[in-house]
């Protein structure tokens, strides 16, 4: 999960990475006395905030008040600004890029650095980017920083500051269970000091059991997605008209693929995961229905999740939520026969294969009002 810039900078500060002096404001009235030029930055999880008007510069108290007032509550590319970070302005000499990220194919951390910072790293030519695999058992060690410094053509003083930051940034990456820690731009001031002008920290949500202090809701999720998350479902909203319930991420994706290739349009999808609980199945319908689809497709390959459990859950949901919309079910695998019988007795159509079910649900969704 992405952390807000100000949260990332709090972590940086804790680890001794230099960041500009600043404070967070939620109400424009809380803006402090103006002392020197500041930058007022919307705390939203979007790249290119500057271009979208989310960053203002203030050279007087009036500027500062106006910037905070203007930004707080504003909508930037669909996201409402609830917090701004007011930070001392620094005199920029040069901007660099540096990050540690997981390289999935190597299953190892990777250091990425470039002397061309302040822009999206994807837009920088490959020849200007230093990348280096970190052996996860050896971890980051100073020699890696020396290699990077040489690539960056740093002098002794620059290299010392840069390597100090690299060592600390790797500590953040590993101790805070991050998928990505990025400083862009890493700023060199006119006075020759390196300072993290921005902070992008992406944490592994699976590690939150040991980071109890991190308590934010994912701003990229819709309210319904957040509700589903709190109930333990993987649930994503889309813009079609067929609600999809399946089990397992791979099968769920394959279901969407097949549906799409058959001209069906998913309204959402919900991954039941592995469950053997009728209530969990029934509750899933509640979520899917809230998005108001025209029909519901259930695609289950029974394993841990057994066919009869799913069938009972569907029957329970139909009754409890008084579902009138067409439900098309595919049931295979463990307890397939029992499940299909339960559904048949309740008047719900079911198929043994995914293709049959998909063709049917596309048909009924097209017919439904």
């Amino acid at each position, binding site marked *: 999960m992405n952390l807000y810039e100000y949260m990332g900078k709090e972590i940086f500060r804790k680890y001794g990475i230099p960041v500009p002096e600043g404070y967070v404001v939620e109400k424009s009235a809380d803006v402090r006395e103006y002392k020197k030029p500041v930058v007022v930055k919307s705390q939203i999880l979007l790249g290119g905030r500057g271009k979208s008007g989310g960053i203002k510069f203030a050279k007087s108290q009036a500027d500062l008040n106006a910037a905070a007032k203007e930004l707080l509550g504003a909508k930037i590319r669909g996201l409402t600004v609830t917090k701004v970070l007011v930070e001392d302005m620094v005199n920029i000499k040069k901007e660099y890029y540096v990050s540690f990220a997981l390289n999935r194919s190597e299953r190892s951390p990777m250091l990425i650095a470039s002397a061309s910072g302040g822009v999206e790293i994807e837009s920088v030519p490959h020849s200007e980017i230093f990348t280096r695999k970190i052996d996860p058992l050896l971890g980051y060690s100073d020699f890696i920083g020396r290699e990077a410094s040489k690539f960056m053509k740093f002098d002794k003083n620059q290299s010392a500051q840069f390597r100090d930051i690299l060592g600390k940034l790797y500590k953040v990456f590993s101790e805070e269970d991050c998928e990505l820690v990025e400083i862009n731009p890493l700023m060199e001031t006119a006075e020759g000091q390196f300072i993290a002008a921005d902070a992008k920290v992406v944490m*592994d949500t*699976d590690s939150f059991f040991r980071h109890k202090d991190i308590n934010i809701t994912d701003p990229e999720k819709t309210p319904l997605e957040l509700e589903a998350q709190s109930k333990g479902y993987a649930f994503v909203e889309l813009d079609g008209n067929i609600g999809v319930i399946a089990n397992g*991420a791979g099968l769920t994706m394959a279901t969407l693929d097949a549906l799409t290739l058959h001209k069906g349009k998913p309204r959402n999808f919900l991954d039941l995961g592995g469950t053997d609980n009728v209530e969990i199945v029934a509750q899933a319908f509640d979520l899917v229905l809230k998005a108001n689809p025209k029909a519901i497709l259930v695609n289950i390959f029974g394993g841990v999740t057994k066919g009869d459990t799913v069938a009972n859950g569907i029957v329970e949901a139909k009754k409890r939520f008084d579902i009138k919309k067409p439900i098309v079910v595919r049931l295979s695998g463990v307890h397939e026969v029992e499940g299909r019988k339960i559904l048949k007795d309740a008047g719900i159509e079911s198929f043994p294969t995914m293709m049959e079910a998909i063709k049917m649900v596309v048909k009924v969704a097209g017919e439904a009002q």
Partner: protein
Amino acid sequence: MTVLVNKNTKVIVQGITGHQGSFHAGEMLKFGTRIVAGTSPGKGGTKFQDKVPVVDSVSEAMAFEPEATMISVAAPFVKDAAFEAIDSGIKLVYILTEKVPFHDSMEIVHEAKQRGITVMGPNGPGITVPGECKIGIMPNQIFRQGDVAVASRSGTLTYEIVDHITRSGLGESAVIGLGGDPVVGLTYIDVLKLFEADERTKRIVLVGEIGGNNEELAAKYIKEHVKKKVVAYITGRSAPPGKRMGHAGAIIEKGVGTAESKIKAFEEAGVKVAEFPDDVPGLLK
């Protein structure tokens, strides 16, 4: 020679008395897996299903000379359990658990690799060699002995495809789930090497998904090293960019790791790519 396990493989289950552990241990016993012991701290001295000895630690379980372990403990305790297995020198470690922090997985996988230990998972369905041994959570009834080896990042989708293969009249020599997490023990390339070396295996199915570049690396490896017939299926074609599809692995990473890129890589390597899961058996024949 079979792939990784056979009917003599002695297996322990770490967390055999837990909800998941006990269910799957039971299914594995039905499949014919030789479970020699289970661990459950504090419950040492009891028996699982009146026959499998339960002990307090892997160290005690080593008396049964296990060659493989299935770890089924809650995510926060997986690293400890895996280190316990590694410290004892068990050569095949399968981690059933999902939601393991990937920094833990990274440590587990690399420490194991240095010691010549194979890790499967976390968050995968395990391995099944029909007629021999199952370690993991795949449904017993979908398999038939045969010559098709299947490797996949996903669980239920694997069953779907195995089921089509079996129903088509073919059978499986080995089915391995790599695991759906960003960091898992086995890569497609590791598994392709095993499949290529396995005498029972004549045909190979790779089930891939969007995200990362492991499928692209596998395609390159197939082109250069694999002589057996390979068929692939890639899921996530319809995934909206930037939306997580449940797996951490299934993120479209700004143009890299798209379904298109993977399909293209496979096709360039001479691998036929199925459009739907039920197309797989037809392409294998």
